[in-house]
């Protein structure tokens, strides 16, 4: 297995691929990337490669089938009385192909990832009415990246259907788009229109791309190794033996898990984007300083951006445009006014987005709860906005004042930490118990009696994590102001630049949580 932070990936796999890419003729370069991607996939999932192959072949075929329908459909050649019928038949055929294509992709995902969960819950429902279990227990090995490449495959097919892109007749190119190794483990979820062209261009390697890419990879490694993997020790202890703790320890677990998740996932995305950059391929950003947000919906526009955008484009809008929702909107606007009417009509689409967001992450009830938690919060936020505005006006509070913004930040952090507590909990019941224990088992003494230092992290560990936080916060602050740190560094003289890079490398090596005494920490999102 070659996680992006492993020596095998960083010092053998990546340099070999870069070298082979550079030495290959330009037209062959995308094939080098494709071979590398399949080798990467094989190193994790072996024979499960069959699923990726099936997905790729079926999507390629469906795309071309949609394209061939368009070629066969010739409105100019039809008699005026036939035009309507021909158009209806054409639309219907294309819709059927689209649904068949999506159905195939979703079936694989549903069977491999969700059948066990649904069967188990069906059996539990039967048990509740004293009926014996009917369905067998199912557990399949999941190929890596299945949740990511399935979404990419579906978006490709829908984009071809709506003629935003043309169906790709080159199987190799499409295969590379679906399996490009830096994005395979944790995304981001790329659109065909964003990456496919650059993937196949075969641009030669450039010094600036290489150095910028390496710097981005280093930043990702710093977040992953110094913060996420060190926090892993403490977070695992708290969540795996949750019934031993309450109050401040559980709060610390939720807070630190949120930071661990951010450092782990965004660190991995930094490594992904950095790798893409080295090959001259721009991979879309997945995070934009989410902790600087003011509301839950803004947070989700800055966190896992590509998933949010995917759900918006392929779930929210299609649901919003259904006849049922349109009629509902019309009626509710007429009866309840513009604001309420809009909220009621958008709630169906919002529900679709959040239930799928929860389910996409995993098959536990805690993930469904997580999705519903944000659905309710965002809906409430939209609903109460006029009330809040009136209150703010009445109390003459400036919404841009530092005090109000601090209040918003604190409120958002509480929302996010609470959500992540349920997200990370081993089950929904465990999450509920942990949440309850914050209030029932609250003792200030946990701060002063050294309880926190007995959970797997020593004082030096906390110091390392704290230094990591400061670095991440400072970089976030600078990026928030639209400044490119790498551009600034490249403007320094060589002595300053090299000293900075040497210091950064040394910090990652020395402060990283790896090797003896640390359990190997997996990439968190690779599990989804």
């Amino acid at each position, binding site marked *: 297995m070659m996680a992006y932070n492993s020596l095998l990936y960083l010092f053998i796999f990546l340099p070999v691929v870069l070298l082979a890419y550079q030495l290959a003729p330009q037209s062959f370069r995308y094939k080098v990337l494709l071979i590398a991607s399949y080798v990467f996939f094989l190193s994790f999932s072996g024979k499960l490669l069959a699923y990726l192959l099936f997905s790729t072949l079926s999507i390629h075929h469906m795309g071309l089938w949609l394209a061939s329908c368009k070629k066969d459909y010739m409105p100019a050649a039809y008699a005026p009385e036939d035009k309507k019928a021909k158009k209806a038949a054409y639309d219907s055929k294309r819709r059927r192909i689209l649904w068949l294509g999506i159905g195939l992709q979703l079936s694989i995902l549903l069977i491999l990832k969700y059948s066990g969960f649904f069967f188990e819950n069906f059996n539990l429902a039967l048990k509740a009415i004293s009926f014996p279990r009917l369905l067998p227990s199912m557990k399949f090995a999941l190929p890596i990246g299945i949740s990511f490449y399935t979404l990419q495959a579906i978006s490709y097919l829908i984009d071809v259907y709506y003629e935003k892109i043309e169906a790709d007749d080159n199987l190799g190119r499409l295969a590379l788009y679906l399996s490009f190794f830096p994005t395979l483990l944790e995304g981001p979820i790329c659109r065909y229109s964003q990456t496919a062209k650059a993937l196949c261009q075969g641009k030669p390697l*450039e010094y600036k791309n290489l150095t910028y890419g390496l710097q981005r990879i280093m930043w990702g490694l710093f977040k992953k190794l110094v913060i996420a993997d060190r926090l892993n020790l403490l977070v695992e202890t708290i969540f795996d033996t949750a019934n031993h703790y309450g109050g401040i320890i559980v709060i610390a677990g939720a807070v630190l898990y949120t930071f661990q998740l951010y450092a782990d996932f965004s660190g991995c995305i930094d490594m992904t984007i950095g790798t893409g950059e080295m090959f001259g391929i721009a991979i879309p950003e997945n995070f934009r300083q989410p902790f600087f947000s003011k509301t839950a919906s803004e947070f989700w526009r800055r966190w896992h951006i590509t998933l949010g955008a995917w759900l918006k484009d392929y779930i929210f809008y299609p649901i919003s445009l259904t006849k049922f929702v349109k009629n509902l909107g019309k009626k509710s606007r007429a009866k309840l006014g513009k604001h309420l009417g809009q909220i009621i009509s958008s709630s169906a689409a919002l529900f679709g987005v959040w239930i799928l967001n929860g389910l996409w992450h995993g098959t536990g009830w805690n993930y469904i709860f997580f999705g519903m938690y944000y659905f309710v919060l965002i809906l409430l936020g939209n609903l109460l906005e006029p009330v809040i505005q009136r209150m703010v006006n009445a109390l003459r509070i400036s919404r841009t004042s530092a005090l109000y913004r601090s209040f918003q930040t604190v409120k958002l952090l509480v929302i996010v930490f609470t959500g992540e507590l349920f997200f990370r909990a081993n089950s929904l019941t465990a999450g509920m118990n942990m949440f309850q224990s914050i209030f029932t088992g609250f003792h200030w003494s946990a701060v002063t009696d050294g309880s926190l230092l007995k959970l797997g992290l020593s004082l*030096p560990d906390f110091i390392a994590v704290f230094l990591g936080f400061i670095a991440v916060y400072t970089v976030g602050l600078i990026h928030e102001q639209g400044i490119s740190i790498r551009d600034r560094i490249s403007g320094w003289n060589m002595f300053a630049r090299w000293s900075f890079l*040497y210091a950064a490398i040394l910090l990652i090596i020395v402060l990283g949580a790896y090797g003896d005494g640390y359990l190997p920490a997996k990439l968190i999102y690779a599990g989804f």
Partner: protein
Amino acid sequence: MKSKNRIKSILFLTGLFILLYITSYLLLPYNNMGDNLYKKANGILKEPKDTIDYVAIGDSECSASISPMEVWNAYGYSGYNCGVPSQQLQDTYYLLERLLKSQHPNLVFLETNAFYRDFKYINSLETSIEETVKKIFPIYKYHDNWKYFHFYMLKTISHKIKPDSATVYKGYQYSAIVNPYKSGPYVTETEDVYVIDEQPLLYLNKIVNLCRDKDIQLILYSAPSPKCWSYAKHNAAAAFANENQLTYIDLNLDIDTLGIDWAKDSRDDGDHLNYFGAKKVSDYMGKFLSEHTDLADHRKEERFAGWNRELKNYLKLTEQN
């Protein structure tokens, strides 16, 4: 890439390597606690010919669970722990074959965790790369010592402590770190069998045959480890032992007799034992040897005087923690 940039890259990397090499020396430990693990296992080759009564062999579960000096101290049997972290059974076999050229132990304790070690070539490759990097740049191995930096500096500079001889621990991997296992009882009886893969099984049979040929009693044992052990694994190891008429000691089933206290006896949340846990397992194994074999107590024998000298060092090192 322009040649100017190529030269810059080479210069940068050269500078980095020199820096890593130099900084490595700031974090080197002052004794051999974290020394090269194969080097420790190979330490048996330095022992005088035919002076070892028993050998313990396997992966990290082995190297962390039996301390031969504890057995020597209580019973006077000479043993060596040849366990090597992450060792796969084919390496165990070759190591055993090599050490049997200079030693003829009466008994071999083979730890069972390696029966289930992943044989993916990719993992072996990753391990080899890591080991090579650790060898070239010790900073990669000892990086975590920044936490104790002042401690090492004081010890090495003010007292000028010389590294201890590798033989003090007789291959045992000493660690006094306490990271408790907290998830409660883990022994749940089942009829499931965790089948031993084809490749480890091949080498397991080779080890059995090698011991038979050399007239050595082979004993399988499972070190206490809630993280690694399962009853399904026990069933497979017990079936193999039964088929081959071998003794199998599963210490996981006997935690209470051993007196293992998971709040104190694990170094990493129940994956491996620390020194306090290993002491208990070593006492158990020593007692087993005294009850089931006719090994002689060598404590007063002149040719084992070195063992008594090393025992003093060992006690000093372990009592410091």
